[in-house]
């Protein structure tokens, strides 16, 4: 069953199309890598999926919600409750402890804090950063900061986990570990995972891939590592 159904979306910046009449769907609980050269529109696609921006044309339907028709506050609620973001620059607020950073989405969405707090401790334990929760971000290594970022993204059990170059700042060893952890947790929580990456090592870990070129789905897109047949858009 498709969690995300994208029909003919276009997004233009100035006179240039970042996405042009793109159609695709993401199945519930599946994991996808989104590949493409710089400027191919992959990050734009991710942010449109995350409700950070609205498409100029076409529709994005996520779990029965047409994002183009949501009001600003409904879209904010969607971002808070259904979507988890893992940014390349993990971007943790330096004035707060890691735990406070992780609890931020729960605070914004007025969720039950006790329940969320217990959950983030479990995730942090799983990711091996439980000892970092009371620390400030600047006291952590890059890998630990990224794991805290992942904990924050998963804190509200999102249906859709969107990662923008999550391993872009990590060495290859940490990169592989972090990718595995993201994949494991997304599977455990039943979240649909979409990862934008340049890293072939990361891409290799995904059986379903979309390749974007000039805002279109490239014919290189395939749904199986060994499958060279492009999917039907």
């Amino acid at each position, binding site marked *: 069953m498709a969690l995300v159904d994208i029909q003919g979306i276009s997004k233009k910046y100035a006179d240039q199309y970042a996405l042009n009449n793109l159609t695709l769907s993401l199945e519930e609980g599946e994991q996808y890598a989104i590949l493409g050269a710089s400027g191919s529109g992959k*990050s*734009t696609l991710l*942010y449109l999926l*995350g409700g*950070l*921006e609205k498409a100029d044309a076409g529709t994005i339907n996520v779990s029965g919600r047409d994002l183009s028709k949501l009001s*600003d*506050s409904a*879209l*904010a*609620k969607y*971002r*808070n*409750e259904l979507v988890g*973001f893992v*940014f*390349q*620059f993990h*971007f943790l*607020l330096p*004035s*707060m402890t890691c735990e*406070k950073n992780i609890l*931020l*989405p729960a*605070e*914004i*969405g*007025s969720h039950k804090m006790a329940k969320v707090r217990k959950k983030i401790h479990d995730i942090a334990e799983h990711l091996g950063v439980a000892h970092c929760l009371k620390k400030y971000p600047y006291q952590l290594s890059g890998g630990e900061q990224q794991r805290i970022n992942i904990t*924050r993204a998963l804190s509200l059990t999102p249906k859709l986990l969107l990662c923008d170059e999550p391993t872009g700042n990590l060495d290859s060893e940490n990169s592989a570990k972090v990718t595995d952890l993201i994949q494991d947790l997304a599977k455990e929580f039943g979240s649909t995972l979409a990862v934008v990456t340049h890293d072939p090592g990361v891409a290799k870990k995904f059986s379903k891939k979309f390749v974007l070129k000039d805002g279109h789905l490239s014919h290189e897109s395939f749904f199986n590592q060994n499958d060279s047949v492009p999917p039907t858009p």
Partner: protein
Amino acid sequence: MLKVFSSFSKALILDRSNIRFALGVWLGLSFSIAVILSTVGIMDGFITSLKSGLKLSNGDITFSSRAGFFELGPLTKKGMKELGVASFSPLIESQAFVVANESSKGIVIRGVEGQSYSQVTGQEILPERESIIVGPELAKVLSIKVGDEVVLVMAQGNRQLDGLPLLKKFKVQGLIEHGIYQKDLRFVYMDQKELSEMLGTKGKVNMVSLNIGQDANQNLTDEQREQAVEEMVYDLEDLLGIDYRIKPYWEDYRSMLEAVEIEKLTISLILQIIVIISIFNVLSFVTFLNEKQSQQIFLFQALGLSTQSLRRTWLSMVCFLWAFSCAFSLVFVWLFNWMLSELSILSLPGDVYHMGRLQLSLDLSDYMIVFGTTLFWMILIIAFALYRLNKRSILYGLRKEFS
């Protein structure tokens, strides 16, 4: 929402330069509010001091006959009692010169019945025969003190030698302060009978001071008391008729008091500019934070904070700043009031302002009006600016800030 507000503020402000900026904005706004409060307070203080000073020399109401000297008949006394006049004191008021230490000064001489006059004015003025009580400013000008001798020079009145002045020596019995410079400089009190004899008025008086009953009305506000005095003036007009001129205690300074009220309003309006300038400082602070901390702001939005909530959070922050500024402005006002009463550099030129020292007088409505107008300007300006500020898309912000 409170948690989000707290986290948002913490994320934006907990930076040394931001804290310094916030402190500057806070102090600036507090000072601007304090300037308006102090201006209003000093004007109100002036009015209050002037009125209480006037009351100290006249009681609540004075009346005099248009025909000059008159006898206060039993019917009038009875009528006043029936109207609720608590106490009254007939007096003679005339003009004279006082000569001392080879200098002289034109004065208003009042012949009073010590007991009744003290009761009406609340001041202990009990002049003995061949003695006078003077104001401290007059004593200063003539360099006289209690126990010194002075000469009073006045007209002979309707006596045979009315072409020649009447001169008589008096001893300075005491000093009496009215709280009004002009009265402290010009008023001299003496025994009424003695003055009547000197002027040959044969027991007649030319003025009556009366009190509407301070004890019974002590719980009234100043405004209610003034209203009660005005009502009594109307009642006395009915009782005494058109031959008498009846004046409430503020009447002689009515135009000045009205001018001060208008001045207060005008200055308060002009001083709104200071507040508006301070609010523009707040606006620049908001703009500065919005630019400098845009990463944090976009992150909050990406994590689910709606534009509406973001504006609400900004406005809450600004309202907090307003509330703290209002609170701190009270410290500035207190400081100004202290300086006004303690520092000689801030004493007023009494001959211009009628009073040497002033105290700020502020009531709840003054605070509400000043704080309320500040909040109004603040919300108006900041809300408009916020509407313009948050038009950038989150994606634009993320791309710009995270690249």
